């Protein structure tokens, strides 16, 4: 293992390029291209602000993805704690210096980008916990003493994000963290305890929810309750997708989005717009690309030797899949509107940055799969 590891550690750039997972890279690129078209449509068929900005971001972050991939996995392993702490610090800064938009304080105004640290935390927490469980032995996993640190590492960012308030993102952060804990082998009973605790504290938590959050949950349970209020989004999204039919209304012909019936069409509802214009076949194509990406990440997880790499890849694959499922479930009216972007396709720098970073580390696992960790 040492021997092979030392050989592998001297990879040339050529080796690294050939080490890339081609299916994954092509799928990412295809989703990127699809998102250009979708964004062009949201701009009303013009090469306008959102489209330009989205393409630029994709190019920058796609390049970043390659750079991250080529960096040794050991570097990411060693930097896991600092990365986590920096993002945590940013989250604390958001509390004090963050920009507020539509009642929620989520963004840090940097000069070139409005950064949303909660998006980065989705990847940061997985990275942190993967390293944590890599280091402790399997015998220690279920000792209560060893459960305290991950629980704290998970709860602090979740609480910080929930109070922004941003229910959707905090749920996705928590979910990513829990997947790592689960994969590491923590017994079912601890999850049961946590679940019970959650159930009992839910009524208290609900009393802290903002009225709009309560109404979202109630509206999901019965969308006709408030057809022009919170239920409006679900209803209009379903109309758009349903009216797309088998083949869609055609590129730039999505009347629902063109006539402004679709809310947040650049961001959370980008899939709705695409689905209206390209129909069932288009939707299935996008969904399959996402499944393909998930499958490739899991596949990379299989091939990685280290438990850090495995934990990271499996967890990120699961988290990535859940981001997609939550967004689609939301626009299809299967779950409440929680405010979760669709990876790569949704307009938004921080979300794309986080996904590209996350996928970059996955790719680094693939390229440096034989490298020793520690």
């Amino acid at each position, binding site marked *: 293992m040492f021997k092979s590891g030392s050989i592998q550690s001297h990879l040339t750039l050529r080796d690294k390029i050939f080490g890339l997972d081609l299916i994954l890279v092509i799928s990412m690129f295809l989703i990127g291209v699809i998102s250009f078209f979708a964004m062009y449509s949201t701009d009303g068929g013009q090469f306008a602000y959102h489209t330009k900005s989205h393409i630029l971001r994709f190019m920058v972050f796609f390049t970043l993805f390659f750079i991250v991939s080529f960096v040794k996995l050991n570097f990411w392993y060693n930097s896991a704690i600092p990365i986590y702490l920096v993002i945590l610090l940013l989250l604390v800064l958001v509390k004090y210096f963050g920009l507020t938009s539509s009642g929620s304080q989520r963004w840090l105004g940097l000069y070139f980008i409005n950064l949303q640290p909660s998006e980065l935390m989705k990847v940061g927490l997985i990275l942190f916990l993967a390293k944590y469980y890599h280091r402790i032995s*399997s015998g220690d996993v279920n000792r209560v003493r060893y459960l305290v640190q991950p629980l704290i590492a998970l709860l602090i960012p979740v609480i910080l994000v929930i109070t922004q308030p941003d229910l959707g993102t905090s749920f996705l952060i928590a979910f990513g963290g829990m997947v790592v804990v689960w994969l590491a082998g923590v017994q079912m009973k601890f999850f049961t305890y946590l679940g019970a605790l959650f159930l009992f504290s839910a009524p208290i938590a609900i009393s802290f929810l903002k009225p709009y959050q309560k109404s979202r949950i109630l509206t999901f349970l019965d969308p006709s309750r408030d057809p022009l209020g919170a239920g409006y989004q679900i209803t209009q999204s379903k109309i758009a*997708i*349903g009216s797309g*039919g088998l083949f869609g209304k055609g590129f730039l012909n999505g*009347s629902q989005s063109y006539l*402004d019936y679709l809310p947040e069409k650049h961001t959370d509802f980008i899939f709705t717009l695409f689905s209206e214009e390209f129909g*069932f076949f288009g939707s299935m194509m996008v969904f399959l690309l996402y499944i393909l990406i998930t499958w490739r990440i899991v596949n990379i997880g299989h091939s990685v030797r280290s438990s850090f790499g495995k934990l990271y890849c499996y967890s990120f694959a699961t988290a990535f899949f859940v981001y997609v499922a939550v967004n689609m479930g939301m626009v*299809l009216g299967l779950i409440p509107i929680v405010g979760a972007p669709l990876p790569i396709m949704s307009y938004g720098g921080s979300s794309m940055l986080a996904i590209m970073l996350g996928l970059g580390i996955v790719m680094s696992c693939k390229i440096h799969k034989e490298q020793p960790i520690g």
Partner: protein
Amino acid sequence: MLSSSGGGSKIRLIGRRMFIISAAKAVVVFGVVGRLISLQINESKKYKTLSDKNRFREWKFAPPRGVIKDYFGNEIASNKQVYQLHLIPENAENLNSLIFRLKNILNLSDKAIFKIQRKISSQKPWDPVIISDNLTWSEFSRINLFLHELQGVEPIVSVARIYHEDSSAHVIGYVSKISKRDLQKKEYLRDMRAAGIRVGKTGLENKLDSDMIGNVGHKRYEVNAFGKRIKEVSIDQGKMGKSFRTTLDLELQKLSSELLKGKAGSVCVMDIYRGDIIAMVSSPSYDPNKFVHGINNKDWKELINHRDKPLINKAISGLYPPGSTIKTIVAISALENDITNTKTTHRCTGSIELYGEKFHCWKKKGHGIVDMRKAIKESCDIYFYEVARKLGIDRLSVTAKEFGLGKLMVDGFVEEKRGVVPNTNWKREKIGKSWYLGETLHSGIGQGYWQTTPLQLCLMNAQVANGGYEIKPRLVLNKEKEKDFASLEQFVEDKKNFTDDTGFLSDIYSNFRYKTLFKNQENINFVKEALYGATNEVGGTSYGSRLPKEFIYAGKTGTSQVRKFTERQRELEIKNEDLPYEQRDHALFVAFAPYKDPRYSISVVVEHGGSGSKAAAPIAKKVIKKLLERHNLREKMLNEGKDI
């Protein structure tokens, strides 16, 4: 670095747990794909409809209303081009200064400006606000002159109702804006709510509203989520409403209105065979055009506070005791019931005492010995007290109802009143008291509880004049049925040639074909002949209003008391003119013309006009003259079978 053995078991555990997660993912994939299938394939049709509902919105606009013409095709109510000014707030550069400029150009009042501003704030900035829906030509041209400085303002040429003269205001009615009550009453209006649409409120405008209103046109626009129009998709011009030709003669309407000028009252003229209402005028009149664009408060107050109630159609809503005009019916009823015969005489001394009450004849000195013909001709009250006493109120009321009193005359006129034909049952039910014999005597000369409309009196008289056949009054010509309407006239004409032997056969035939109102037509003919005396013989009540040879007609005067005279007033011989206006008698007159081969019936009522012979008969005389002069013209129209 971890030991490889520990790492091995750990990695196996991770793999196992990942397998469970993958299974869960598969379930989610099925969920999402299933949902996509259900939305985009199974329920696609439903959502496509919903999407179109979102996408398109219709703006309705009012079609031109059907035209109302008189018998000769002259327009009574039609449409004219109006110049409107619409403002689209969104298009204005500076709304306040624009409104200020418009205020100066059009001399708008502060109140009007306030209303416009309130309207603007209550609707979307791209919805047009109507600044004025009826600009004068000079205002319109002034606006067009300044148009380049008035961004956001649109001059629009539209159509609106116009009424050509006031004499037919009551029978034609008027249109106005749709009210909540209209929407409840008229179901067809629900799909008709277009900007600027008007609905008939009274008269024929109301009766024929559903046919005349036409089909609403619409423009279909694609709209965005905020309701803003993006582009026009389709346009439907709508359809003009159905036009109607009426039985009215505009010339007679105008003449009648002219004759009633300064008086309150009404003139009705009817074809005695066809039931065609040739004139139906109520006075004073009003300008129905004022209602089309919304009547102003001052005009409205003036109309409703006017002593003579200009808005009431007195021809069908004015209720008057018939006075002596009822005597024809009393005579017919008594003869038909064999209570008396034409030869029976009574002595009139000017008054009679019965049941402890004193009953007076209008002629203080008395008529002396009177038979029935003289009683009708000179309108002797004492004679008819006697007849009524023997006849009884219940038998009289049956005959009166047969001849049309107490019934609605014209369909679809909500403002029409039924009136009262009194009898013992009626009094018990409505007043809760039993009938006094004295009341029978009052009823016998058309006083007391009687309430009749001028049109009812006209119909009553028409059915006497045509020989006792039931007819139905009508205002609107009907192309398909015109032949049927001519047949009664033909039948009466043919009947003259029947011999006595075949006469009874004709009665059987007429009973089968027409509803006859008599048992013995001789009784009707007797009354008609007596009425000839009333107008054309010395001593007749309307002798002063007779017409020369070619226009000879026959009529019955009536003077109905508004209040009962006290014995003291009778002694003082107080003249009608000396009483306060409200207490003066109503003057009535019914007549048919020409006397030989009658064709038309007329009723005239002048409220508080005094005696029928002085106030009502002279009006009737002039109308009858004009009517007979125009008879040939009317016949020609009919024979030519001109387009109806």
